[in-house]
């Protein structure tokens, strides 16, 4: 079987209408390492403009014909990706090592992820890479508040790029950052303006993820950020101050988790609440496994688990970041502890949550 890490990564660049996705993408594509990148553009209300901006990638660009990349038309995405791969195999287009999909402003990126991960042919050639969400610093707060599409795009992001920060008041930017941290405390926020756009690091944004040797440790640091001390400070603060029903929190478990019980619990949780469990990311201490096991899920779409070679430090606790809509930390924590205890009756019902 093809190792997951060797599959061609597909990055998704998303963001609400007018947030500046194409500007960011066009800058990223100029990075030297992005030369062998195929780009799929979903045009919606920006016909022509988007294409013009990235025309240097036209050798490997396919334009999807329909509007949003949602469930109803993911056949288009499937066909486009299959065609892309076939044309490359036949030598009709240059070899590519990466694909970037720019979604429309109203798109839900999850069906894209599902198509990549679940389509019978695509899953043997491609894997889902980082999801990058561009948030407009001027209008972002209003979009997040008024449009569920915008909030979801931010919630499932692996990286958030702030655009137009030079056009907004400093206080507004701080409020937006706090809001984004509340929605998705696990995604690094990169200021596109202060990095000068041309300074946007394509490796950090696109290339490095938990399936690349360079990206594993950085990804774990980003997921857990300031919570390495075992306290849930950042997430807890954000949760307490939250004004929407999307929130992120991190659970820590002292005892090793049983992989079988965890799989049963998580599949059951996603089956019933997958529409409200927007992201799960974690580094697990699995019973009987020496190295930490990394898990990564976007709603119903779960990546195959991977591992780090050795623990980053002496701390052997499992830590899992959840981004949920309307499900409390306490309910998740109690449920997972109860399921884990089924495989480890000697342990108490509570698996030991360090932050408490």
């Amino acid at each position, binding site marked *: *079987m093809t*190792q*997951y890490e060797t599959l061609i990564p597909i990055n998704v660049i998303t963001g609400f209408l007018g947030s500046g996705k194409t500007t960011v993408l066009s800058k990223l594509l100029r990075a030297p390492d992005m030369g062998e990148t195929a780009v799929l553009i979903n045009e919606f209300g920006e016909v022509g403009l988007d294409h013009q901006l990235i025309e240097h990638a036209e050798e490997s660009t396919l334009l999807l014909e329909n509007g949003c990349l949602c469930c109803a038309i993911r056949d288009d995405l499937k066909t486009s990706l299959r065609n892309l791969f076939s044309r490359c195999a036949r030598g009709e287009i240059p070899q590519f090592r990466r694909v970037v999909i720019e979604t429309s402003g109203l798109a839900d990126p999850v069906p894209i992820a599902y198509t990549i991960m*679940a389509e*019978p042919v695509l*899953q*043997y050639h491609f894997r889902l890479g980082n999801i990058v969400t561009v948030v407009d610093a001027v209008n972002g707060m209003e979009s997040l508040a008024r449009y569920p599409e915008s909030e979801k795009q931010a919630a499932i992001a692996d990286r958030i790029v702030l655009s137009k920060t030079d056009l907004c008041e400093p206080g507004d930017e701080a409020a937006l950052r706090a809001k984004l941290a509340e929605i998705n405390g696990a995604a690094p926020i990169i200021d596109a303006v202060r990095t000068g756009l041309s300074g946007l690091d394509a490796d950090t944004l696109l290339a490095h993820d938990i399936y690349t040797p360079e990206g594993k440790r950085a990804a774990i640091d980003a997921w857990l950020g300031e919570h390495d001390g075992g306290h849930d400070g950042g997430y807890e603060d954000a949760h307490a101050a939250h004004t929407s029903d999307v929130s992120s929190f991190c659970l820590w478990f002292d005892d090793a988790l049983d*992989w*079988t*019980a965890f*799989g*049963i*619990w*998580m*599949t*059951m*949780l*996603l*089956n*019933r*609440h997958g529409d409200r469990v927007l992201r799960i990311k974690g580094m697990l201490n*699995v*019973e*009987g*496994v*020496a*190295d930490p*096991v*990394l898990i990564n899920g976007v709603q119903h779409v*779960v*990546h*195959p*688990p*991977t*591992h780090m070679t050795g623990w980053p430090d002496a701390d052997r606790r499992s830590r899992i970041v959840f981004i949920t809509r309307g*499900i409390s930390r306490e*309910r*998740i924590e*109690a*449920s997972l502890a*109860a*399921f884990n*205890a*089924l*495989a480890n009756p000697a342990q108490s*019902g509570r698996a030991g949550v360090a932050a408490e």
Partner: protein
Amino acid sequence: MCSLCGVLGGRGHWTESTSTPEAFASRLDATNRRRERQTRTAIANRILKHYGLTLKDWGGSSYILSTKTGRTVIVDNLSEIWIAAEALTQGECDPLDEGLLADLGTGR
């Protein structure tokens, strides 16, 4: 491809450690696919009991999910088990349900 039905299959389910041996290398020394399936079936049955359902491993390749009245469904993996369980019971199988967690805690 499934030799019985001819349907193209995907990669192994993410919950099966044997599908990603690179992540579970040290664990696989001490276990194997069949033993993992036995453990999975046993733990799943603790939960499914709450809904009046039972699960059996079928030849190491699929599972048979049954009601007390004998209705059965064949499923391939954990994700399918919960879809089938909800269809068979016409209800919700919710891991956050306090009634389920209470049952699990008391071993009922």
